[in-house]
């Protein structure tokens, strides 16, 4: 009965979450399970937001017989058990630590420590429970006289967000939290929201009761679009003072824009927040485009009037025909936007500024945003800033990671006649054996190598390709002696470690391990290495064991 009443009062609508909302509302207002586990791996943050707003909604619109109070804590923000307890209780009683009181905790005047351990936390919880009950009943008593025993029941809901963090940071608190209902002897239920499944977090030996599971399916394309569209009124309220980018008259246009965006980008990510991020970055450009189109129309009507000061404030939704044309125009830039925004190669703000659409007047309207790939950017930077020896080390590391160790002598060894005896792998070796094709080492990922091998290959490279650019040194008369000195210099080793810190080289052994040689793995791509080798005039292709096809 109460459920229907609630829905009648002010239904909380969230696209795509109707079923979940109904389920949760029914449970929480009726007979809630002591421990609920919500799992969402795709749109975790949206789910958290929805759950939280549902609980806020429920606690605000509490019914006659049961009022609901709720507390939430973000497990990732709580670095210790103590701060988790404090976060829960402060959120429950809606308390903010004040600087003037020395940032003391809630009700700490009597030197009561309810943040010390689980027992004291339970006490604190009971106090908070009593406190809220007291507060709520005094609020009501103004209107109605009631007996103390007749107070409405209070139900406390604890929402722990990002519960998977508890397992790593404070595994001890996991079991008490899941059993909080029986421990506290209160009308209380706990909800975990997590990115990973319960079976991963679950404490051993069945110490925790099995939760009531709610699995949130990944949002469909339509749901994602609806979620984005539903944000529009909020945005237009928020920005009504500064700019009119989200003017209510553009609502329809925004819906179309978002639908197309979701059509294109939903293939790659299903997280509505990511889609919204891209929409936020692209929308100002689109509005500008629309404003431009409007202005042009106006100008052609006025026979070239000089009214160019028109502000975005007056953007009117375009006609149906224009809308289709403009959306087609802008949609070409969505993949590029996705490519640089999704991995955060650029932030949305800068991207929006950098990719403002050119004015419609120019005939060559190319909206395909120019984005350099990660590869281009990093190799250009490496070429400019890396010292020469580091470039050699990177090339050597790539060779060491791709060539098998047993090929080194053949690839790099010099014969007696001073002529290189190289032999590349025969093409025949790519024959399939037993039905399984052999994957080229270049594609199979780098393999680890000991530091000595790296230094040895570095020596070969220096001897073969760097001998001309060296400083003259008379003291080294034996062939190869200079290189020998060179590869054991302090700065060679420090450069290797610096490259590890810069993540251009992976160290596969631990830093504090003294036994045995340190091993490394190359972390630069083929293209970067090729660029580096070109810069150093090393014929990389000749030095690779497996030919690049």
């Amino acid at each position: 009965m109460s459920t229907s009443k609630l829905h009648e009062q002010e239904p909380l609508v969230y696209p795509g979450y109707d079923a979940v909302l109904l389920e949760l509302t029914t449970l929480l207002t009726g007979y809630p399970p002591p421990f609920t586990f919500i799992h969402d791996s795709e749109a975790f943050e949206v789910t958290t937001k929805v759950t939280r707003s549902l609980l806020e909604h429920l606690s605000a619109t509490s019914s006659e017989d049961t009022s609901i109070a709720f507390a939430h804590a973000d497990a990732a923000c709580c670095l210790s058990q103590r701060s988790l307890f404090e976060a829960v209780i402060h959120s429950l009683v809606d308390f903010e630590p004040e600087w003037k009181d020395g940032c003391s905790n809630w009700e700490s005047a009597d030197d009561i420590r309810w943040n010390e351990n689980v027992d004291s936390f339970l006490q604190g919880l009971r106090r908070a429970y009593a406190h809220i009950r007291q507060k709520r009943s005094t609020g009501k008593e103004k209107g109605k006289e009631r007996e103390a025993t007749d107070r409405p029941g209070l139900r406390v809901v604890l929402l722990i967000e990002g519960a998977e963090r508890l397992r790593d940071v404070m595994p001890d608190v996991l079991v008490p939290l899941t059993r909080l209902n029986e421990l506290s002897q209160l009308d209380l239920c706990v909800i975990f929201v997590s990115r990973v499944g319960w079976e991963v977090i679950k404490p051993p030996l069945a110490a925790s009761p099995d939760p009531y599971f709610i699995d949130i399916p990944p949002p469909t394309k339509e749901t994602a679009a609806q979620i984005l569209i539903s944000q529009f009124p909020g945005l237009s309220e928020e920005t009504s003072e500064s700019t009119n980018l989200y003017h209510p008259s553009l609502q329809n246009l925004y819906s179309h824009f978002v639908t197309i965006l979701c059509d294109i980008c939903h293939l790659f990510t299903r997280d509505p927040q990511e889609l919204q991020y891209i929409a936020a970055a692209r929308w100002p450009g689109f509005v500008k485009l629309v404003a431009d189109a409007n202005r042009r129309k106006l100008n052609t009507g006025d026979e070239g009037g000089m009214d160019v000061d028109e502000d975005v404030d007056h953007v009117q939704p375009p006609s149906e025909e224009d809308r289709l044309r403009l959306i087609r125009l802008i949609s070409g830039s969505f993949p590029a936007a996705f490519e640089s925004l999704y991995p955060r190669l650029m932030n949305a703000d800068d991207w929006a500024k950098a990719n403002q659409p050119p004015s419609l007047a120019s005939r060559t309207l190319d909206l395909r945003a120019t984005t350099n790939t990660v590869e281009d950017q990093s190799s250009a930077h490496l070429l400019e800033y890396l010292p020469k020896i580091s470039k050699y080390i990177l090339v050597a590391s790539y060779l060491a990671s791709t060539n098998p160790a047993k090929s080194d002598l053949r690839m790099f060894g010099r014969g007696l006649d001073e002529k290189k005896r190289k032999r590349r792998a025969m093409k025949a070796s790519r024959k399939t054996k037993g039905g399984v094709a052999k994957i080229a080492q270049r594609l199979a990922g780098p393999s680890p190598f000991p530091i000595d091998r790296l230094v040895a290959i570095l020596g070969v490279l220096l001897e073969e390709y760097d001998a001309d650019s060296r400083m003259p040194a008379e003291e080294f008369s034996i062939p190869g002696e200079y290189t020998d000195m060179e590869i054991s210099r302090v700065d060679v080793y420090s450069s290797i470690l610096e490259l590890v810190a810069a993540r251009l080289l992976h160290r596969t052994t631990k830093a504090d391990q003294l036994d045995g040689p340190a091993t490394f793995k190359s972390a630069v791509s083929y293209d970067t290495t090729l660029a580096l080798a070109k810069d150093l005039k090393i014929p990389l292709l000749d030095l690779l064991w497996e030919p690049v096809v």
Partner: protein
Amino acid sequence: MSEGLQKEEEDRQVCFDAYKKAWAKCLDRIQAIARRLLDPVAGQIVKEIEDHATLTGLPHPELPIITVTNPAFRGTFLYDVSQRLDNRSVHLYPSDCHNAIAGMRSLIAGFLEGTRDIVRESHRSTTSVPNYDIKLLVAWYKEFCTVRGNDAQLIVILHDFEVFDTEVMQDIFYICSQHVRALPLVFILSMSSPVPLYLNIAYPRSILKRLRIRKLTLPGGVSVLNTVLLETFFSVDFQPDVILGPIALQYIADFYLRYNPTFDSLITNLQLMHMKHFSIEPLTSILYSTPRSKELSQPEWSDIADDLLTRLAPVSKKLSDEKRNQQWKLLTPANLPNLVEKHRKQLYSRAKAVVVVFNVMKIIQLFLVNEGYKGLGWDFKIGLSDILVEFLQNNVDRDVKDLSLIMRKMSVAQVAKVLPQILDLFSEMEHETAITREATAEVEALIELLKTNSKDDVPNKFSEWATSFFKSNLVSLEENPLWEIWYTGLTPFPSELINPSIRATMISGLLRPHDFTDKVQSTPDVDSEEESLWQLPDTSILFKRYLDSGKMINVYDWFESFQSVLEVQKTELQKAASPRKKRGKPQSPRKLSAKTKGKQKQQEDVEVDDNADQTEEEWKLEVQARFIRALHELDYLGFIKHTKRKADHVIRTVFEVTE
């Protein structure tokens, strides 16, 4: 003896004072250059921080992050930035953040400690918000805003960001991003890695999406080196007191490009060269001022005076007899100060002339490149140091010849464009000299000529003037008498101090241990005398035997050969000890070894005295013990590889050592 020492000490002090002065001047200049290079970036950072505007419609608030990729100027640059800002800022280092709690604690404490006027009253650590909880900072910030009346952003500067633990930083970033509405934090990350996308590589997307990353890159690489070299040693408006020679210049440039492209290493190398110059050349004590002739006759200056007289002696075969006689006459102790003064002025003006010529040629070359010609084909980016070296070695005759040909072929309009640039250069000079005065007049005359009818002749005249100007001013600085005082010439750079070869040092340490442990006072004769094997420490004895062996070493054979050396050592020591304790007695080598512990040393002293009483058994035990110790030392140094291929054998790891 002690007087001599004292005098030496005083001389050194004079040299050291001169060094300090010269280096301070050079360093000031370099730092001014650095400031000028960094100024725009600092301004940019300040602008970024003050830029509050964010895009509307983002799914959640983002934590502003400014990454400063700073491959050349590491270190304290960001302190300058934080001083420019009124905002409160905290500097964090990797050691402050070994875990998330410690990191948050130092972040919060950094802000709290800086404000003495905002004090937390009556706080009990047990019942109030812990000092690593961000709620504390939120509360403090609220108070801060009311007390100070502004809501300035809070700046967190993370130095050496690559060294921070990524997991810890993820937590800290996450926590801060969750409170960014209440707490306007801005993070500045100082990174030395040349990869601008370091954050994208090292951090997961779940954190990246909470950050608003702006990337700034400081100037680095070869451009910094070139600017410093050009503006310090080849600038028309600055004269360094010590002029860098070609070898040192080449090494410094090569080291920068090859190994360590940082500003600090560049400064260190230049400083080292200054130090070396002042320490190997005693005459540098008169680098700045020459003592008067009266002072020179005093005993404390006698060395310097003698030295000067020797060096100024006109022994060159190029001189005619008449000239030589004339110079001999001038060379009196009374006249020395004047001579030194004269040579100082002459050297500096010659050096300046070379610099001016370089700059004029550079202007013409850059102009030619601008016009689309190849010119002399100079590469002012990577190859700059080579060009500078050529100039210092007076090796540019060919270039001058080529350039004069090219200049002759320039059009009148082109010459008209170049000439004012050259005139500008002359006007930038610190002091006007005779050379530039003359040259200025010539160039002005050429410009005047351009306005007349006979302007077609200007390119020829320009070329003629320029060629003669170049030729007359390009001289080798080493022709100047006493150049050693102000010019480092062909002195090599002490590269082994900066970038030694580990293996070579280790092997030479094992082969000649006494060169490292004894004082360097030893006279050259001692070096030539080869020490016999028994005089070396145990590890060295073992190592010498190691070098004599094949690829695999039988440990028992090795032990026996070691034992035989020790037998010799024992008898020699007994021989030396039996008559009386001679001064030059070769001490037990192990006593010299730094690794020997005090306790063992004591025992050994006793042993040398009492080893007559030692039984055969005890001696054998001692030999074994010493062998095992030496073996383990070699093992620890990585010279031995254990193998199970053959019993009692180990494998050598170092071959073909040239002794």
